[in-house]
């Protein structure tokens, strides 16, 4: 009975949240600045974090993150609700990051966005390289992780951040990045394997 009540409460809460997000979306469609401010409050950290890890230059990242919300505000009447609001925002963010990287690439400022064509590499499913079950994230380790993520190709980085950092589902990522779900999974596997390789040296030193 207690479990049923708990499940019922959870369901009620979920419905309340859906309703409140739905009403927020409706207000945003009518260009309600206050409602949109609430959307910004809810997602600014996540969008900013994603963009900052996708765009190397901090000032560029700040500019792109603002652009994400401005584009969303301007195009809210075209948001059809087929995907969730966060998927839509991350899709805009991803596209803007790709655009910015291409523009920088044309100007010869940064390296190519595509990185290596890791998608074409065969996947070795067996995973014996690293088993960091008890690894805790210290400040130093987090710097190493950030550094390894920055060295990753843009394709792998996008999927890794959206899945492991922002908790988007495979289907949501596929929608945001416009690739099949299978590709999302293989990219995620490769991204994690890359990170394992990059961190194994550091973790080996620490353990000794």
């Amino acid at each position, binding site marked *: 009975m207690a479990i049923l009540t708990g499940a019922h409460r959870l369901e009620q809460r979920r419905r309340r949240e859906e309703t409140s997000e739905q009403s927020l979306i409706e207000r945003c469609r009518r260009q309600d*600045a206050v409602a949109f401010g609430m959307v910004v409050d809810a997602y600014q950290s996540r969008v900013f974090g994603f963009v*900052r890890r996708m765009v190397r230059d901090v000032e560029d990242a700040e500019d792109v993150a603002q652009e994400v919300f401005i584009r969303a505000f301007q195009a809210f009447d075209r948001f059809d609700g087929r995907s969730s609001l966060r998927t839509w925002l991350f899709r805009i963010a991803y596209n803007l990051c790709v655009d910015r990287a291409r523009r920088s690439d044309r100007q010869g400022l940064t390296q190519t966005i595509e990185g290596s064509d890791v998608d074409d590499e065969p996947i070795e499913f067996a995973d014996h390289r*690293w088993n960091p079950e008890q690894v805790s994230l210290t400040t130093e380790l987090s710097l190493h992780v950030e550094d390894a993520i920055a060295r990753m190709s843009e394709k792998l980085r996008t999927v890794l951040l959206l899945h492991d950092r922002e908790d988007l589902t495979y289907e949501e990522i596929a929608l945001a990045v416009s690739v099949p779900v*299978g590709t999302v999974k293989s990219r995620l596997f490769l991204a*994690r394997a890359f990170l394992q390789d990059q961190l194994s040296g550091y973790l080996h030193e620490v353990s000794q």
Partner: protein
Amino acid sequence: MSQPTDSTNMKQLDEALNSPGQLGVRQLVGQLPEDVPNLVWRSRLNERLAQSQQQSRRRRLVLRVKWGGFAATAGLAATMGLILLSRPAITPALDVSQEPGIEAAMITAHREADSAMDVSSATVSESFVAHRSKAETPPFQWSEADLEAL
């Protein structure tokens, strides 16, 4: 391998993604510190949003004026069309003369009389007078016998 095609590969991939090593990386990435944009960033965003809202309002106003003009013209044209369409149609009168019956007979008689009047004009024609004169009874002629009888 860019896209696992068969279900076996997909199953293997799902298992591999759930291996301890892969889940460990997921945990590490998930624990990375959150990036909170500073107040200057937020304030600048609010400014840009306000500018964008003003621009979109202006654009909508211009659009509304343009569409208003277009709608008024279209409305006027539609009204004119409706007026023209709703005018009572001039339908030809029913020609009863072609149909058998008393009405047709009456009309035929009327037309004949009418044309006769046209031909003969409004005044009495000489032939009519002559005909009438011929038809008149000649004046009574008293004979001598009659007179004696008196």
